[in-house]
Structure formats: structure tokens, C-alpha cells
């Protein structure tokens, strides 16, 4: 990746534009300095924050076909400057803008997926994570906000597993339609961004969340340290063929997670990576077999219990590329 000037996506004002121009200049300098273009692929990184105009300028500044393009004939493009604290609505729009202006015959690499909207990137999936204020972010379409210091635990632990809509938590006066999206929408992000035209992704999430005792499953996540798994003698995912699921039960992992043996973390890391690879493999297969939209619908069904419970930002994003969740 080129050296770029990264600015948080929640920053506004001239700093964003400065970063965008600088990134373009630095790209040129990187290209000029690159000594092994035949052995190493130098990717450009599209910046511009959440400003559509700036982002477009960055893109066109980097991709417009004229004499400039020859000089900036990079093998691939990364979409950067997102997955900070921006809202999901802004996030998907910037991704869509970026992919629409990038050449179709070069890889598009979305840098960093899987941050929950309105929050600073931090450890999540962890029970002990201290809550931060939602910056007026939309949480599944409902304008809820939590004050700093309010215990998240109650809320997160209710109905956060499986595609079931649990009963609303008692300690908060929220509407009954509290969506299931109290789990981070990591896998959803991936599926939606594939639909929007991204090819490659990176994220610390699966391995990091594993180290906090969280296992990824098609219906969300399992916080295996919780007491409910103490005597659950089935594997994390009966459909998963990873070494962890082939040999070990949730109960064993629960026990091991409460010990100081790091093997527990490795078991979960292996599983989460397998989940990850399996998901992408399934996406690819569905594209090749020309049934990607059906795949998306089915995915959302499993993840949210019902397609209509898919977070609105995702529904919108998918609709923008012709995928309708019925």
C-alpha cells in the first residue's frame, strides 16, 4: 500500500482535503520510488473521508484516463479512510462511490471492515468493554443513545445469539422492535461491500474477537465465556469443518477460556478464520453460479432471523445495486 495521509472519518473541514491531496502526491512519489514493480504490487489508497466531492476528486485525480493515468497505472486500488467512527449510511455511500469510479479490471481492496457505527474502533464482542456514547448514531434505525457508563452487559446479553429477537431488555425503555443488530455487523459489512463491488478486505476483527472468547457463527456470535455454554456439549457450529469444531465442544472451550491456557484463544482463532474463509468461499461460489442475490437474502435471513430485520443501511446499500431483500 502506498504511504497515505489518513484522517479519521469523523473529521470535517480543510484537514480532509489536505489529506486527500497529500495522499495523491505521495502516491506519485511512491510510484516514482518503486524499485521492484515486477515483484511487488503498489496499491493506491483512495482517501477523501466522507465528503463525496473530495473522494471523487481523489478518485478521478487517481484514475481519470488521460496522460496522468499512465503515470498512475497502479495494479490495484485500496479504499481507505472508512471504518472509523462514521455512520453506516455514510460508510456504504462512500464505498459505493469509490467502487463506481474505480476501473473494473483492477482489484478493489477495502481497508478495515467491521466497525460498529457511531463508535470508535475498539474491542468489541467483549463483555467488559466500557460503553461509549453513541454519537447520535443510528442504531438499527432507532435513535437510541446510551449515556456513558451505562452497563451494556444487560443489553448485549439479551437475544444476541442466534437469529432470534429476544424480548427487549428490562433496564431500558426501548421499543419492542429493537433489532438484533446489537451484535457487530462484521459479516454483514463484508457481504454488502462485496455487493457494492469490493474484492478484498482486511480486518483484525475475527482474530481479535476470538482472543476475547467470541466465536463467529452464521447467526452472529457466541460469547463462549458465558455461563449458558457451560454444559453445551455441541460444537461451535455443527456445519463447520474446522479442527476446533471437529473435535471440541462449546462446554470445553468455555472451561478452557476460564483458565489461563492460551490454547483456548487459538481454538477460537482457528474457528473464526475458518468461518471467515468459508463465508468468502460461499460468496464466490454464489457469484460464479449466478445466484449471489439469493445468497445475500439467505445470509440476511440467517443472520437476522428475517430479511426484514436486516439493518436499514444494509438494505438500502443492497437496493442500490439491485438486490432486494423481500
Amino acid at each position, binding site marked *: 500500500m502506498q504511504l497515505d495521509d489518513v484522517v479519521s472519518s469523523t473529521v470535517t473541514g480543510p484537514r480532509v482535503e489536505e489529506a486527500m491531496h497529500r495522499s495523491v502526491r505521495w502516491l506519485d512519489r511512491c510510484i516514482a520510488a518503486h524499485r521492484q514493480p515486477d515483484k511487488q504490487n503498489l496499491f493506491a489508497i483512495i482517501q477523501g473521508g466522507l465528503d463525496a466531492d473530495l473522494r471523487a476528486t481523489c478518485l478521478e485525480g487517481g484514475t481519470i484516463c488521460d496522460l496522468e493515468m499512465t503515470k498512475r497505472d497502479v495494479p490495484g486500488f485500496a479504499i481507505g479512510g472508512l471504518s472509523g467512527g462514521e455512520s453506516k449510511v455514510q460508510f456504504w455511500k462512500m464505498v459505493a462511490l469509490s467502487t463506481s469510479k474505480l476501473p473494473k479490471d483492477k482489484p478493489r481492496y477495502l481497508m478495515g471492515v467491521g466497525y460498529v457505527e457511531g463508535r470508535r474502533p475498539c474491542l468489541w464482542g467483549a463483555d467488559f468493554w466500557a460503553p461509549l456514547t453513541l454519537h447520535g448514531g443510528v442504531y438499527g434505525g432507532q435513535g437510541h443513545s446510551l449515556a456513558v457508563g451505562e452497563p451494556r452487559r444487560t443489553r448485549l446479553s439479551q437475544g444476541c445469539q442466534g437469529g432470534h429477537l429476544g424480548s427487549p431488555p428490562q433496564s431500558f425503555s426501548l421499543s419492542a422492535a429493537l433489532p438484533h443488530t446489537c451484535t457487530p455487523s462484521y459479516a454483514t459489512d463484508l457481504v454488502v461491500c462485496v455487493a457494492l463491488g469490493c474484492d478484498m478486505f482486511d480486518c483484525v476483527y475475527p482474530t481479535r474477537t476470538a482472543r476475547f472468547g467470541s466465536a463467529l457463527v452464521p447467526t452472529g456470535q457466541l460469547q463462549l465465556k458465558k455461563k449458558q455454554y457451560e454444559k453445551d456439549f455441541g460444537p461451535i457450529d455443527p456445519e463447520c469443518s474446522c479442527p476446533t469444531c471437529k473435535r471440541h465442544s462449546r462446554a470445553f472451550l468455555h472451561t478452557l477460556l476460564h483458565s489461563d491456557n492460551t490454547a483456548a484463544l*487459538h481454538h477460537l482463532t482457528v474457528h473464526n478464520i475458518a468461518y471467515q474463509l468459508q463465508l468468502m468461499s460461499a460468496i464466490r461460489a454464489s457469484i460464479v453460479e449466478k445466484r449471489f442475490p439469493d445468497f445475500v437474502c439467505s445470509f440476511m435471513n440467517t443472520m437476522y432471523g428475517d430479511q426484514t430485520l436486516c439493518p436499514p443501511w444494509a438494505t438500502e446499500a443492497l437496493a442500490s445495486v439491485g438486490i432486494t431483500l423481500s
Partner: protein
Amino acid sequence: MKLNLTKVVNGCRLGKIQNLGKTGDHTMDIPGCLLYTKTGSAPHLTQHTLHNIHGVPAMAQLTLSSLAEHHEVFAEYKKGVGNFIGMPESLLYCSLHDPVSPCPSGYVTNKSVSVWGGGGRVEMTVSKFMAIQQALQPDWFQSLSDGEASCEEAISIKRARKSVDRTLLFLDSCLRLQEESEVLQKSSIIGVIEGGDVMEERLRSARETAKRPVSGFLLDGFQGNPTTLETRLQLLSLVTAELPEDKPRLICGVSRPDEVLECIERGVDLFESFFPYLVTERGCALTFNFDYQPNPEETLLQQNGIQEEIKYEDQIKKIKTTGCNQKMTSFEINLKEKKYREDFSPLVKECSCYCCKNHTRAYIHHLLVTNELLAGVLLMIHNFEHYFGFFHSIREALKSDTLAQLKELIRRQASGELGNTNLTLH
């Protein structure tokens, strides 16, 4: 189970224990070690990774201290701890305590013994203890015993006597309860020899325990630091002399290579393998040489003094200033040291473990500096494989009557004479 001695050389027993396990078709070599586990798993290693290590012992050691608090889970599970931890093919020995975490003393009563797990103290009467063993269904388990004699410095004769009395009482109760349990018919009880440093009590414990229908013996109370073991070696010989030859002798709390050899010479068969784990936890790698018949070229290199003089001093200093066996020994190198930053050789030159075949000292150093979990994984792989290789070399040495050479080689390394170069040319 049947112990077949191939030969006995200068007090060292070489042989095999056969017909082990629920299906009766497992075999264990002696002298040998047990795979050390924490909460039913080798430290840092998934089963998958564990299988990539060469020479993993047929029997793994589980500790009641890590499992007792989960009693209800096992009771509900019903299929035994081997299946629960994902090691259905392995032989399992359940010890009372974890050799790495010494337990506080003052908690044994005439009726109960306590272990300390992650969730705190678990007190067990004989019936609770046996109920837990019923739920675990290990192949072997240590009988409930009073091992506090080993927690204290100078133990009184009275206390030593008490430890023997209580332990025998516990043993008889356990044996009785085992008779009444269908589930435990396939499990074997290991009798525990107590008595502190009081010879009469030790002999009494040995003789009395030997009268019971136990499947083997655990020599408790010999752990400590290298100096305390030395003073107890004679006692150890006297104890093993009282034990029947056709039953295995285990010792707890002794795992260092030099100590292992001393104990083998005094009739001990099986050891715990927590030493490689301790080495791993301090960011070190076992590099001691157990190849007592090196090829002529290597011998020449050694004689030509490739070793760095400075190393001797370091090793000797370390040994002199530390009495506790939790500090670094001369059997290992400390990968955190700056000098490994650009050392692109493997941990041990001719080691066939996954770590040495794929990675360098520099990489391990980097992982340690950046606090990566992978450091523990790779070091554990190497340290276990190196340690198991050591035991293999002991058995080979006994076969070929060359244990004296191996012992000398280990002795010279323990004292820092040979330095710790692993004969790598820089």
C-alpha cells in the same frame, strides 16, 4: 496393566508398561514422562498443533486443581474427561495438584484435602474426591493424600507421621469406594508415599502402601529446588527399595533434566513434563545437548573452543545467585536477549520440531518483543519436543549401557562448564 522390565542398570529401570487404557492396548515406555496439561490442554497448543510434535508421551497428566471446580459439568457430560477435552485416544493420569502452582499449606484435615483452581479453593472429602473421579474416569489417578509435608521447610516427626497416617486412611477409603463403583473399575489408583524427610515414616509409608492393591506409586514430597532434592536422594533410594518392582513409580514436582537422571538412578520410572512449560513461560528455549555420542566433527569443534567465554560467567552467575528453580537454568537460552535479534539460526540446529524447521531465533525474539501469542506456541512446541527427545535418549542410553556418558554431559551443562552454544557457528 503389566510392567515388563527389560533391564535394570545401576538402579535404573528400563522397560514397558503394557495393556494400558480402557481398551487395554496402549503401551508406555519407562523411564518416561507424562504430557503436562493445564485444564485438560497442553499449554498454548491445540490438539492439531500438539499432533505435530514428535514423541508426545502416551499418557497425559491432568490436574485435579484445574478440573475439580467443573465437577458438575463432567457429571452431566458422563463420557469422561478424555472425551471432554478432545483427547479420547490418550491415556490420562489425574494428579491432585499442579506441579507449577504450589498450594498453600494448612488446609488438610483428617477428613478433607483442598485444591486451588481458577475459582478458588475446592475442599474434598474422600467421597467428593471419588465422585469427581467417577465423573472424570481417568485411566490412573493419584489417591487423595496429605502432601503438606512438602510445603514446609523443616517438618516435625509428628507432622510427618500424620501425613502418612492420613494418606493411608484416605487410600483405604478410596479403594473401598472404588470397589463399589462400576464406572471406576477401569481406572487405576496410584498410592502416594509421604513422610517428609523422616526416614522411619517414609519407610512405613512405602511398606504400608505397598500392601494395598494399588497400580503404582507416587513419590510425593521430593519437590523443591535442586539443593533440597540432593539432600533427599538417599531417602529416595531407601523408599523405592521398599516398593515392588512390577509397579510403576511416579514422582511429582521433579522435572529438570539433571534431577530426572538422579531420580531414574534411584528407581523412579515416570516424571511430569512441566519443566519445558516453565522454560516457555520465561521466553526461553531448551538447547541443552543430550546427544552424548556426537559425530567426530562436532566434537572437534567443541574441543577447539568455539564457545564464548562470556557465556560461562553468565551461566555460573545465574546458578549461584538463584536457588529457586523458577529462574533460568543453563539448559536454555533466553530469546528476549538482544543478541538474538539477528540470529537467523534455528533454536537448536538439528532439531526436527516444527519451530526449528520453519523459524529462526530472530523471529522468536521478535515475537517475544512484540508480545505475540505465537511466541508461546512455537516455544512450547520446541521445548516439548526437545524434552521428549531427552527422555528418548535416556532410554537409548540405558539400552546401550551408556547412561554414564549422558549423565556426564548433562552434569557438565548443568554446572555451566560447556556453555550453551549448541555448536552454532556465527
